[in-house]
């Protein structure tokens, strides 16, 4: 009780201060928690630590930023934790595409992106179609032709069936009128090892997963699955250039706050990420990891969030995945 009244008093004081000195905007007063929905070492976690590293270098956040891992349920645990921390001012989280997809396909996921406060989208992850360097397929067309000739014989290694690589596969199969197997494997390491070992014929991946394999002449990219060609593999034509009308399946990463995050806190983080986005350190980081710059805040981000949900809903439905919400 005492505690609560102290908090209330504090809140009153802060409000009073805010009322009298409007220029006094929000700055963090203690360590900020940066929540990640996967364990240490996963792509997400590394992304969060990378962002924290860049912010540390720039010295624009006056307090420490601690990465905390709330794993479980492919993001659902993190999402429900965030929704419990309504209006918390010292907690932000990394979102990825599963934050939209998982609540749509899992009954357990009761929190959706609409309940939370998206702050900024930072990067987009491109994707490509790759084969082993000694494979006979030089472009997407040859791969599709072979798949048509031997229905269900060619194999693609990938992650879970609700992941981007399988939804993309569904779209490609439809556009090409061909069919091939999708073999789920748990880790990215296993997937690429299966490709390099010749156990599967093709993989849909982020170019960063294989750039070094490409440089060493072990992997060949046969199509870019984005609207535009990628700077990391500029010679590879997009799937549209190759004559297949396959929409891009976007994958985004950025930051989101708890429900009802106070406006001044949201503005503060928008400012911080805006500053970071302009820095050379960040641009280098994006380039080094072969992301595409996807900086977006405010109304643009809201629009993206709504459209993205719709797009993914359509793609998942087309891919034959059951939706619960």
């Amino acid at each position: 009780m005492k505690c609560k009244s102290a908090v209330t008093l504090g809140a009153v004081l802060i409000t009073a201060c805010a009322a009298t000195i409007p220029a006094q905007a929000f700055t963090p007063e203690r360590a900020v928690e940066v929540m990640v929905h996967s364990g240490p070492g996963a792509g997400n976690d590394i992304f969060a630590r990378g962002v924290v590293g860049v912010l540390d270098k720039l010295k624009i956040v006056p307090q420490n930023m601690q990465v905390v891992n709330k794993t479980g349920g492919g993001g659902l645990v993190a999402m429900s934790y965030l929704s419990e921390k309504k209006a918390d001012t010292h907690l932000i989280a990394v979102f990825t595409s599963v934050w939209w997809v998982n609540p749509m396909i899992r009954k357990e996921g009761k929190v959706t992106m609409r309940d939370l406060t998206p702050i900024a989208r930072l990067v987009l992850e491109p994707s490509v179609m790759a084969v082993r360097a000694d494979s006979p397929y030089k472009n997407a067309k040859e791969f599709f032709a072979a798949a048509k000739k031997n229905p269900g014989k060619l194999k693609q290694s990938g992650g879970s069936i609700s992941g981007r690589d399988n939804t993309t596969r569904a779209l490609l199969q439809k556009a090409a009128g061909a069919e091939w197997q999708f073999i789920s494997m748990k880790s990215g390491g296993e997937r690429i090892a299966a490709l390099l070992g010749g156990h599967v014929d093709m993989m849909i991946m982020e170019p960063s997963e294989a750039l070094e394999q490409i440089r060493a002449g072990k992997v060949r990219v046969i199509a870019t699955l984005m609207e535009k060609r990628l700077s990391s593999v500029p010679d590879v034509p997009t799937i549209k250039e190759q004559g297949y009308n396959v929409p891009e399946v976007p994958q985004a990463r950025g930051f989101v706050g708890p429900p009802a995050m106070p406006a001044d806190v949201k503005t503060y983080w928008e400012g911080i990420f805006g500053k970071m986005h302009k820095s050379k350190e960040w641009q280098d980081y994006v380039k080094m990891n072969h992301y595409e710059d996807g900086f977006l805040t405010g109304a643009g981000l809201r629009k993206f969030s709504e459209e993205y949900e719709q797009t993914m809903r359509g793609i998942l439905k087309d891919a034959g995945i059951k939706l619960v919400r």
Partner: protein
Amino acid sequence: MEMLSGLAHGFAIALEPMNLLWCFVGVFFGTIVGILPGLGPSATVALLLPMAMQMNPTGGLIMLAGIYYGAKYGGSTTAILLNVPGESASVVTCLDGFEMARKGRAGPALGIAAISSFVAGSVGVVLLMLVAPPIAEFALRFGPPEYFALMAMGLSMVVLLAGKSMIKALLSMLVGLWLATIGIDLFTDGARFTFEQIELMDGVNFVIVAIGTFAIGEVLANMSVQSSGQTFTVPKGLRNLMPNWQDLKDCRFAFLNGSIVGFFVGVLPGAGSTIASFVSYGLEKAVSRHPEKFGTGVVEGVAAPEGANNSETGGSLVPLLTLGIPGSATTAILLAAFILWGLKPGPLLIQDNPEMFWGLVASMYIGNVILLILNLPLVPVLAQILRLPGYVLYPVILGVSIVGVYSVDQRLFDVWLVGGFGLLGFLMRRLDYPAAPLLLGLVLGDLMENAMRQSLMMSNGDISILYSRPLAATMLLLTAVLLAGPLFRQVNSWRLKASEQEV
């Protein structure tokens, strides 16, 4: 020649004062993290990643790698002293390690764990240096059918982990295999046995089951039979707290076995150190002249899995450094560190950055020596913990277990879960069911099921894919031999009995 000059250059780099300091910092933190159950090397490496980013790549890598292999040294400590596996790979160490402690030989057990870690850890580095590129190419020949055969071989170890009753061991293993199915199915994305609990969607964490059935089960079993008083004996005199010459002689083969098995299992991206420790323990028991003594506190039973666990580090660095493929959570973070430093992990890494590769290799030799020097003097000190009377020691074990479990994901749910598995462990002890086969089933079940389903998808349902590829066929044959061993012995004993009756 090129290798020698490379190594000489590497030592020159690793012996630079700053790099030596980072190596020490890494192995020191690693040891501490290893001793604390729950918090594993991957979490610690991730924690120190931002700090490493501010350092030069070689120094940073030396430190991060130091944490990785340092943590593996420490993992055996709580396993031997408290029956609490510090990490998943130390589960097997509990089997004989804790029994040794019970017999007043905690000191020699800890000592042999450190020595075996040192020997195998060093051999792992030697192998990393000598055979990395060719062995990486070989590892790529492991596709799903080969993994299936490997897991089948691992699972057949159950005949070696069985106590008096084979039926009970098999039942225990089946429970483990069932536990492995809990969670989201990789292939259909359907939930199995999760009861709409988010906490169960990723399956049951191995460490929770291990700590529950081993540590908590043990404490409950002891509390139910003993009222109070001294539970362990700790002999006086330093000599009794260190492994003696006979111990070392008994472990000759275990050192070799652990080194080789650990390294080769480590090279495979889909396996891991837990499997390495189980396989080397099984192998040790299979070739032993006194297999019946395993599980009662034989020193080889500690040396083999601990060695394998440490040699695995060298192995798991092979796909990372030669192909840019991470085989475990920890190597995945190292991969991220490479990228953040602007290095390009992949087939050309060693060629492009020889100073970094050789610096790392040399630092791992040095780090292993530091770890031995750091760990051996701790042995007599740590062994004193067992002087505590039961009414102090058991609460300590329970506390360490619960904190350890909670530290993994910070979820209260896991604490309830570990309590449940504690009860299961207690009942299993009471009814004389061995717990090790359950854990074996749990660790292998998921991998084996995935490998089988992947294989069948590859062949469009033709089961011959599992045994028609030469590598897979060889491993399945070995499995058959392993399984036939006890059967043969059984038949033989019946035959002997029959012939005695005839006379």
